Every structure is written in C-alpha cells, then in structure tokens.
C-alpha cells in the first residue's frame, strides 16, 4: 500500500463509521435531521447504570455548560486591564446585583470541573474502558484534562489580586525550566519578560475564547467517538465474556426515525449493541430524563456551595511584595510540593526543582498516561468491570499515585505556613505583613 493510500485509510478510520454508497446517501444522512448527532435512537440499558459510570462525564459536561453561561455573564462586567481588572472584579462581587453569585458559581464550577474530570479519568482507568478501539478517546480525554487545567490556570490570573499574580508568577517560572524551549515559551505566554498588561490580555483571550472553543470541539469529538466505538465499555461483548477486540461496525437492518417524531426512514442507525434490541431503550425520553436529573443536581450543588462559601479576593496585585505563604491553586499544590523538594545537588551540578518536580515528574506521568492503552496487556474480557482481579496490579499502582497526589495537596493546602514551614491545621501562624 502506498503512503498516500495509508493516509487516506487512516483519515477514513478517524472520521467515518461508514462510507456512503452515493453522494445522495451521504447528504441525506446529514441534512435530514437537526438532532442527527445528538443521541443515538436507542441506548443499551447497561449504560444507564448510576453505579457503573457515576455519570462523571455528564457531570463535567454540565459543569462546562454552567461555566460557559456564568462566564459569558461575567464578561459583561469584567475589564481585562491591569488598571481596572481588580476593581471590576470587586464591583462584580460587591456592586453588581447578584454578581457575587455569578462569580462564586463560576469559581465553584471551575474547582468541581477539575475534580470531576480527574475522577472521570480514574473511573475509565479502573473499569479498563480505554482498551482497543477506545484508546483514541482516552487520548482525547487526556487532552481535555490538560485543557481543563490550563483553563483554570488562565482564569486564575484575571482577578489581578495577590493570589492571582503570585500563583501565575510561580506557574510561568515552572514553564521557564523546560529544557530548550522554556524561556521562549514563557516569553510568548507572558508577551514580555514580566507579568503585565500583555500577559493579562493573552490569558484573558485564551480563557474566554481559545481554550473553551478547543474544549467544545474536542468534547463533540469525544461524544461522537463514544458512539463510534460501540457505546460505553460496559455494553461490550468483551465484558460479556467474548475475548477478542471488536471493531465497531454497523449492524444491518434496523432503521429508526430519530426521537420517533420525524417521518423519514432513510437514515440507517446502528442496532443497540451486542445484547440486541431487547436490552436497549429509546434515548428520548429515558436518557434525556436522567441527564436532566444530573444537570439539576449539579446546578443545585454549585448554587448551594456558592451560598456557603465565596470566591476569595485579596489585595491588588503587587509585584514588590510576595504574600507569605504564596500558594498555587489547590490542584497544582502537589506540583508545588514536588517543586519545593526535588532540587538535586550532584557534586557541582544542580538540577532545579522547577525542572524535576515541575516538568519531568508531571511529564513522565503524562507520557505514561498517553502510552498506557498501548502497553496494557490485561485480558479484554475485563473491560467494563470495576476493579477486576486481572487488573489488580495496575489499579493498585494508580491508586497509590492518586493517594500520594492527594496527600501532597492536603499538606500544601492545610499545613504549609509562612516560609514554607509545616504547621498543624489547628496551629496558629505567626503574623505576616500583607502590605509594605
């Protein structure tokens, strides 16, 4: 096969589940229905389970929706200028009617999204749902996790208070430690050598447009890919005991009108999975109803949390005074701990903690995450089950890694006081000056 033919085949494999026999068939399939790609006509009953998926993917999608809506509303009041950013946030919080609610909800949804996307990833790992044809979607998921973190980080700078300024100072100095490209990367990210107006505008545009657009595009692909790969792993024949990888392919015969309301029958949809039509249920209304329920729960949770606890706003950003202690956002605290303890001195050679803890360790974890679907040799019949015996070793290793990260985050959050000294959570810190 020539290189060109290979590339075309790869392209088809990435973008097509089935090739239309005629131009007409292709157009018909796409144009007939507005909701074409929204839900499959029928969904296997196994994938409705609350306890299998914990609906973590749906929850993160709804958090993204809440973030988009509250974010757009906040954009009406926020001014991305070093002179006005802080005061516009203060206005949002104390002057704009219910502005505090918008801001708190945005903050809480952002924290929860980082948490839930991470838990979603753990769930997919523990149930082995990244194997065979699903490895592509696992990679998309890894990128979505990184985008979520970067979205959170860019949003962190926008209030332009001490918390924002110093978290981003530390974060971008970690980027600087990257070999060869680090300094150039920081220069382009900041739009200069120090954090200033160009940094604020760059972070703002990334935060409100570029990154959300990227998340939206990948999210669409992520969802489409779930269907292309034969639905959720729990519905696989492999998890029912058929021990061979299955390339998802259209099952002949069944045609449904989507939602049961359009009269056309020219659109061929895939039958409901290996357990047959009897084990499947119409998406509308059954899937729709559950999704609405999950959305309601997520929305209520963000509102309740916003009423209990508000987003912080410290003194305006001050480049001459580092707050003591200065901390990264909680989801980067494990990195901050690593950065602080991994500076190595070998003879005359010193390796910065920024390089080891900030770049190498997370880089290795990321590389392992990307490569794992292709290294995993556990039997495919374990796919779609929680903690199967055959996957005990790798599940234990991931549990330990996640536990270490959790412990480091808790130490950074609760126990690090001034000058990076350790204090018990109930111990008082010495008084530190907050202004010069």
């Amino acid at each position, binding site marked *: 096969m020539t290189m060109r033919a290979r590339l075309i085949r790869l392209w088809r494999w990435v973008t097509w589940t089935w090739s239309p026999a005629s131009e007409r068939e292709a157009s018909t399939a796409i144009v007939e229905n507005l909701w074409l790609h929204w839900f499959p006509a029928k969904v296997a009953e196994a994938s409705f389970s609350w306890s299998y998926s914990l609906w973590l993917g749906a929850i993160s999608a709804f958090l993204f929706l809440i973030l988009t809506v509250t974010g757009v509303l906040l954009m009406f009041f926020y001014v991305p200028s070093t002179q006005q950013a802080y005061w516009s946030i203060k206005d949002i919080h104390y002057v704009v009617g219910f502005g505090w609610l918008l801001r708190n909800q945005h903050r809480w949804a952002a924290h929860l999204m980082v948490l839930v996307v991470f838990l979603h990833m753990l769930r997919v790992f523990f149930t082995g749902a990244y194997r065979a044809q699903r490895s592509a979607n696992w990679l998309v998921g890894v990128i979505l996790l990184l985008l979520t973190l970067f979205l959170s980080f860019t949003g962190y700078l926008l209030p332009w208070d001490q918390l924002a300024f110093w978290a981003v*100072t530390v974060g971008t100095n970690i980027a600087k430690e990257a070999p060869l490209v680090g300094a150039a990367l920081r220069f382009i990210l900041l739009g200069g050598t120090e954090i200033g107006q160009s940094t604020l505008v760059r972070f703002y545009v990334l935060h409100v447009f570029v990154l959300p657009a990227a998340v939206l595009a990948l999210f669409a692909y992520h969802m489409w890919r779930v269907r292309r790969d034969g639905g959720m792993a729990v519905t696989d024949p492999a998890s029912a005991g058929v021990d061979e990888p299955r390339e998802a392919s259209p099952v002949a015969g069944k045609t449904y009108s989507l939602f049961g309301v359009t009269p056309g029958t020219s659109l061929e949809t895939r039958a409901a999975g290996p357990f047959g039509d009897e084990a499947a249920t119409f998406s509308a209304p059954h899937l729709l109803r559950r999704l609405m329920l999950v959305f309601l729960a997520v929305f209520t949770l963000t509102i309740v949390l916003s009423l209990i606890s508000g987003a912080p706003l410290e003194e305006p950003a001050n480049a001459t005074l580092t707050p003591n202690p200065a901390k990264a956002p909680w989801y980067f605290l494990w990195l901050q701990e690593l950065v602080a303890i991994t500076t190595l001195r070998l003879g005359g050679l010193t390796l910065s*903690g920024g390089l080891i803890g900030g770049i190498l360790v997370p880089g290795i974890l990321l590389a392992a995450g990307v490569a794992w679907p292709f290294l995993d040799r556990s039997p495919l019949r374990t796919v779609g089950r929680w903690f199967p015996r055959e996957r005990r070793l790798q599940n234990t290793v991931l549990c330990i890694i996640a536990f270490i990260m959790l412990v480091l985050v808790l130490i950074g959050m609760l126990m690090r006081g001034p000058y990076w000294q350790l204090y018990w959570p109930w111990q008082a810190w010495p008084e530190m000056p907050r202004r010069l």
Partner: protein
Amino acid sequence: MSLTPASQPAQPERRRFLQWIGQWSVVAAIVTQLGGVVRAFVPRVLYEPSKKFKLGKPSEYPEGVTFVPMHRLFVARERNQFHVISATCTHLGCTVEWKDKLAEFQCPCHGSKFKADGLPFAGPAPRPLEWYPLSVSGDGFLVVDSGKSVPPTYRFAIA
C-alpha cells in the same frame, strides 16, 4: 469517484500536475499565514521599565542591607563600599526577604535560604541570587544595570 469524467483526459500527467500545484499552493498559503500569526505573538517592543535605572544618592543608604521594593533588589553598604543583590528568588521568582539577625535571605514561597552574599544553602533554589553592577550618574545617584551580572566579589567604592 462519481466526479471523474467518463472519458479519459487527453494528458492525465499534466492534469495531475496542475492539481498537485493547486493543492500544495493552498497548503503553502496556510503555512505562511500561520508563520505570520506566530510571529505576531513574539513582541517586537517591550514597554517594560529600563533594565538600567537610578536608585537614590549613596548617602541615603544606611550601613547594612536595604530593600528597594520598586526594583526588587537590595542595596548593601559597608562604609563607602556598595553592592546590589537581586531580590528575585532563583527558584521560581518570588521576592526574597532579608533577615538582619540571621544575616540571610529567605524566600516565602518554597523556603529557599541564601547567605548574605546570595549563595543558596537551604531549600530548592538552584543558583545564587544575581549581583548587578553599579555606577554613579552625573548628578550623583547610584545607577544599577540589572541587564548585566557581576560575581559576588564585586564592590563599588564611593570616593
């Protein structure tokens, strides 16, 4: 392919070549444009404060170490000998503080400690604090060039 005409073109080679030119000129146009976009994000002019700036007159600084918050540096004086040390931590860029009793610099972010000459002795900082050269302006002010660095043996004497 339904788009291929039934009759063979007279010169298929030429047709394929023109097609090739067409496709790759589109690719070339996009790549060139992208190059321009990337260039736009590398600033040509930095509206940042000059790396060379005036401090106060030498007589304004007392014996010992004085923090100059505006420029994030310390002015150290021993009689008529001056030197200047950067307050930017070499670990991840927080501002270090001078502890007079201990005669050392401490960083609040990750707990690095430096001796009075800027040499790190505890915590994660990988390099000594920067030293900058001094001069005196015509009107008698100390001038720092933070774009250059000097070794910790450097002393600037005021006559």
